């Protein structure tokens, strides 16, 4: 068979097209960051932050590293799903930011043990966020910053309604009802009425736990049903703002006067301060029952190394440089763009922006009442619990029977991960 020149060109074009389709592996210089150093090429993935300047900052850090050529990939969209899928292939990142790592990622050997990087500084990391990165005594991710959630309330609206800032769950339910009218709702816990964002917080506020220290279900207790039942009262009283254009993580609903109280994150504080001045206060989630205690959920994105990287040591060296040695970058990352607490205790203590007003309250809540989701609380356990909470809050489902089903499912999950 003879091949004509035209045929050859056509085949070459088709092949070129096919090759182009599969060429973006995300590892090489095709990324939009750009390390200035020599040495191996490393691809570093971040999820897209809402705060302006963060992307430029992380690219600046990467460019300053001179022992590897680090390419930063700033990834919009559903980042957790993107990284989870990418870790199954060789085209994923060398180092990456992760909302975890999850226990299945650690047990599936998808992330590298980073324990040796913490020599001499382990105690300087906030233990509440370091614990969920630790499994079998080894650390699998370096916490970057501490994020926490709290209750924002509008002082003037509470004063007008003759309501005191709520210190117990019952007071919160009553206050939300009194603050609700045709134009303003009492409380905003997210458009799903709080099932997603509250998670285990009400259980902690009732003096319980998600998973006990010895790896058992921590809320197989009548107090759990009692507390979760109270959340349904908020919904049934029509005290909750629902269907806001922006969800709980954005302070818009609070700033637009759609709600008198809103559950949101520390990251919202600068915007709230700018819009409302002194007309707001912050609180932890209020306690419930005799054994209760205020509760503040904390979490941290971590920097991790993929086991599929061809440059494991170089990747570890880079992460050590960025998230352990360069404390100036860590402070800059936490406080210059958004508003987060540095993961290093020594940095958090000396940060001037965290020493006064609501920011200082937030740091105190984190220290006194902070809890992180335990590593053993797997996504399957989370889904089962969140579904039940949804049905309890919105449908008024019986909390006792719903929780019995959740306890059964979570126990099975705990057995599964412990047997590995």
């Amino acid at each position, binding site marked *: 068979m003879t091949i004509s020149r035209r045929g050859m060109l056509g085949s070459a074009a088709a092949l070129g097209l096919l090759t182009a389709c599969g060429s973006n592996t995300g590892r090489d210089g095709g990324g939009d960051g750009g390390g200035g150093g020599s040495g191996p090429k490393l691809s570093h993935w971040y999820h897209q932050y809402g705060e302006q300047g963060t992307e430029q900052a992380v690219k600046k850090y990467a460019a300053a590293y001179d022992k590897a050529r680090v390419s930063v990939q700033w990834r919009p969209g559903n980042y957790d799903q993107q990284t989870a899928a990418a870790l199954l292939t060789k085209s994923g990142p060398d180092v990456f930011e992760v909302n975890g790592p999850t226990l299945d990622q650690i047990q599936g050997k998808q992330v590298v043990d980073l324990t040796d990087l913490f020599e001499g500084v382990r105690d300087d990391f906030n233990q509440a966020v370091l614990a969920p990165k630790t499994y079998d005594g080894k650390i699998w991710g370096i916490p970057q910053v501490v994020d926490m959630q709290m209750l924002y309330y509008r002082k003037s609206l509470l004063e007008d309604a003759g309501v005191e800032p709520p210190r117990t769950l019952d007071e919160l339910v009553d206050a939300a009802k009194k603050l609700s009218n045709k134009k303003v709702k009492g409380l905003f816990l997210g*458009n799903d009425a709080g099932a997603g*964002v509250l998670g285990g917080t009400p259980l902690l506020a009732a003096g319980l736990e998600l998973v006990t220290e010895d790896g058992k279900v921590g809320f197989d207790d009548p107090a759990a049903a009692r507390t979760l039942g109270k959340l349904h009262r908020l919904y049934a009283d029509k005290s909750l703002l629902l269907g*806001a254009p922006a969800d709980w993580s954005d302070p818009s609903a609070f700033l637009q006067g759609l709600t008198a109280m809103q559950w949101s994150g520390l990251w919202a504080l600068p915007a709230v301060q700018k819009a409302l001045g002194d007309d707001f206060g912050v609180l932890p989630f209020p306690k419930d029952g005799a054994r209760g205690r205020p509760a503040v959920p904390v979490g941290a994105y971590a920097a991790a190394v993929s086991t599929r990287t061809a440059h494991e040591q170089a990747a570890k060296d880079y992460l050590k440089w960025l998230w352990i040695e360069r404390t100036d970058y860590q402070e800059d990352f936490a406080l210059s763009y958004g508003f987060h607490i540095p993961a290093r205790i020594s940095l958090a203590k000396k940060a001037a922006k965290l020493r006064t007003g609501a920011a200082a309250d937030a740091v105190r809540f984190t220290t006194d009442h902070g809890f992180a989701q335990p590593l053993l609380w797997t996504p399957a356990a989370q*889904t089962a619990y969140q579904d039940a909470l949804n049905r309890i809050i919105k*449908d008024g489902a019986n909390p006792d029977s719903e929780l019995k089903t959740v306890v059964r499912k979570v126990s099975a999950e705990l057995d599964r991960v412990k047997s590995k």
Partner: protein
Amino acid sequence: MSREKKQKQGKREKQESHRTRWFWVFVGPFLLGLVVFTYVPLGWSVYLSFFDAHNTVTPTEFVGLGNYTALLRDDAFTSSLWTFCLFTLFIVPTTYAASLALALMVNRLRRAQAFFRSVFFLPAACSYVVAALIWKMSLFNGVRFGLANTLLGYVDADQIAWLSTTDPPWYWLVIVTVRLWLQAGFYMILFLAGLQRISPTLYEAAAVDGARPGWQVFRHITFPQLRTTSVAVVLLLVINAFQAFDEFYNLLSDARGYPPYARPPLVYLYYLALGQGQNLGLGSAGAVLLALIVAVVTIGQARWFGLGRKEADA
């Protein structure tokens, strides 16, 4: 065989070989793509469904039918199947009726028919994601400045959190209307094509026989003549309903997950297999089960409508 004949045969063989070569040049890459990107993953998915595959696509622990039994015992999965059935019961008849009504209306127009045809068809070109976000954030958001709530405000009615209340389940109104808006125009075009294929002599004969225009003519002439179009439309609507994902996901999910109500199977399997849990074995078993359900329903429906039967048998 004469020399001339031999020459002709040689030329024909050469042309044949050229044709074969060009056939493979054009079809080959697509066939390769189909095999590599569709059949291999499909086969691999069936393989994975028999393994415990957490965070891996090359598992080692064989669990037999364990994933299938686990999924069939999982309340969340079975309730997602009921959600799908409910959705199909809503969406298939409403889209069918709306698109047929639109087609009848547009077909009767003497002027500006092309304009109205385009107006009703245009939403079909809109992305499901974009439409879902418009419905969620502008038309049916739960605060006082959403369009639906603004209208309610004029009659002094309470605001409704359209996507967040389960009693009454207003979210169905949002889900069904967005799909109706997106799909009705497309099916209207199919019905229009069907209507234009009906011979005018049938209507003339009916008029001579004294049939009253309107319902009587529609019932005894138009509707029976649209039988083949109707069969195709219903089949497409049911298959599309099975594939519902985009509008559900974009209307109801948030950064923290998805509510258990109005969760069709594809959304549940998406969280199961591609969410942070990465349970690819269980997800694959779900995909196989869904594929079987779609196949059974489609074959059953096709047999019910007599598709593939010879005209004489029908």
